[in-house]
């Protein structure tokens, strides 16, 4: 079938005893795209990945990867996927190089080919210096990078990354993001799960929000943000002008907040096109000079809160830098 998605799932259901891990999940990822599966712990993200990577059988529904059914043709699927699981899947007693060579050979490479590929990947992942040390001495970030390397060893057309940066420090996270972006540059289709809303925002073209075994929302990061929640307007005036608030009133949703010096206004505004222009025009009509105006789109934290009525565990994502005066 032409135009078929690289990853496709219809009505996936998975139960573990009385627990329903997936309650009917549909997914579709076109070739070359990155789908970010976003959700808190226990939302069913890992179960979905286990089914799509042939490690687990769905109780209901069907799924295909690269055009092959995951239950009927698992070997064909395995030939075309790379997987980096949530817990690292390395051999602790082998060195980084030995791990990659072993995975390469078990994937079908000859010894010399596996050796060459391991050397290339170790360099690309900046692990050359640690290549000949046992992986039990590796830091968390190094393990994740090696795990990503192991999943890329055959240059698979489809990659599954289960929470690739969970538990890593911010610098290691950025390193992993670079590696993932590089892979997509190679034309790979990627499904990655994350609890970090900013991670999905930075990496994914499409986001599917999981909650309690269901997809509760999907779309581009931009769509999700504009569908849910209001934007936040921050205006810095040249001088304190109390009449600025009535001037802006038609645009505001709720109360405006004024800073101590009276120059800075902050308020929730309707998330509509041209909101910054409208704000500047309204102030201009009132004869108020504006030094700086910023409109902050809602963060994905706001989106998740709006969709589920619950906070996520993430604390870092909501913070944005203070508005700088021009």
């Amino acid at each position, binding site marked *: 079938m032409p135009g078929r998605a690289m990853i496709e799932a219809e009505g996936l259901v998975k139960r573990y005893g009385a627990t329903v891990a997936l309650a009917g999940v549909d997914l579709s990822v076109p070739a070359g795209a990155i789908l970010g599966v976003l959700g808190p712990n226990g939302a069913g993200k890992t179960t979905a990945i286990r089914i799509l*990577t042939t*490690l*687990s*059988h769905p109780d209901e529904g069907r799924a295909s990867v690269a055009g092959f059914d995951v239950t009927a043709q698992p070997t064909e699927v395995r030939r075309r996927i790379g997987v980096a699981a949530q817990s690292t899947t390395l051999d*602790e007693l082998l060195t980084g190089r030995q791990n990659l060579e072993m995975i390469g*050979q078990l994937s079908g490479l000859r010894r010399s080919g596996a050796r060459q590929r391991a050397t290339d990947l170790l360099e690309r992942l900046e692990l050359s210096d640690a290549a000949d040390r046992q992986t039990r001495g590796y830091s968390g970030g190094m393990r994740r990078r090696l795990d990503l390397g192991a999943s890329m060893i055959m240059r698979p057309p489809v990659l599954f990354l289960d929470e690739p940066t969970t538990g890593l420090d911010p610098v290691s996270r950025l390193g992993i993001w670079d590696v993932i972006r590089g892979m997509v540059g190679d034309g790979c289709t990627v499904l990655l799960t994350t609890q970090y809303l900013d991670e999905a925002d930075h990496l994914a073209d499409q986001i599917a929000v999981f909650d309690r075994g269901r997809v509760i929302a999907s779309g581009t990061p931009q769509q999700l943000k504009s569908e849910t929640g209001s934007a936040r307007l921050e205006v810095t005036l040249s001088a304190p002008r109390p009449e600025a608030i009535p001037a802006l009133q038609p645009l505001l949703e709720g109360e405006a907040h004024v800073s101590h010096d009276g120059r800075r206004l902050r308020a929730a505004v309707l998330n509509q096109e041209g909101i910054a222009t409208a704000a500047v025009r309204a102030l201009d009509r009132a004869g108020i000079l504006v030094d700086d105006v910023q409109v902050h789109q809602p963060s994905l934290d706001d989106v998740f809160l709006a969709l589920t009525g619950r906070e996520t565990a993430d604390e870092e994502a909501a913070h944005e830098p203070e508005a700088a005066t021009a």
Partner: protein
Amino acid sequence: MSVRTIAIDDQPPARLGRRLREILVLIRRNLVHILREPMQLSDVTVQPILFTLLFIFVFGSGIPIPGGSYTDFALAGLLGMNLVMSSNGTAVGLTTDLNTGLIDRFRALPMWRPSILIARSVTDLLSALVCAIIVILAGLVVGWRPSTGIISVAAGVAIALLFTYAICWAFGCVGLVAKNVEAAMSIGFIVLLPLAFVSNAMVPTQGMPAWLRVIADWNPVSAVTSACRQLFGNPNPSALIQDWPMQHPVTAALLWSAALLAICVPLAVYLFRRRTSD
């Protein structure tokens, strides 16, 4: 029941060469593990030397053997006992692997799943070979002498190793059922101690109570040690026992090995599939 799903799940049988390469890669991995943690080998190095010295000098002083010395009698028994005990390593090795994330990595690769089991069993056969050599060298040092030729002695060792290989698959099944390494080890010892000791390995069975003697004479370990004694030309009091396995120990040892393999190999493959799918 499982056979059909395996056939669908795995690669076409034409790719024998690739399967052999997978098995070799996994054997090499297991050998690297042994190099990194040489204490894994203590079961097949330190323990056989210890057992040889203990049994020959402690028990040997009090057990008269008709037609020869206790040392000559005991060596085949020590060989059988040490090799059988070493098969616990298979259970422990498999359980260890199954409890790491690595097994999920293997499962998502387009490889032949039974390669993992075969590689484990071949690695354990190699360490059993080390064990056999050490027992024989220790025996030679304390005065054991075969009275037949080198080929006959080698045939005896080969029978013991074949039986060990079969027992390894049986203990592979234990490892696939055990929840963790500790459980695998305790199940192993509960089965292995009686298997090794309720036999003619270290004492002639003639002195045992009648009911125990029947068990001992039909114990496959007894057949293996009798076969070795016969092929080494060492004293073999069990040759006087009328039970069929004691009269035909070589055939009995081979049949036991074949039967164990015929049951335990498919069972292990089935258990492995069951353990690694959800």
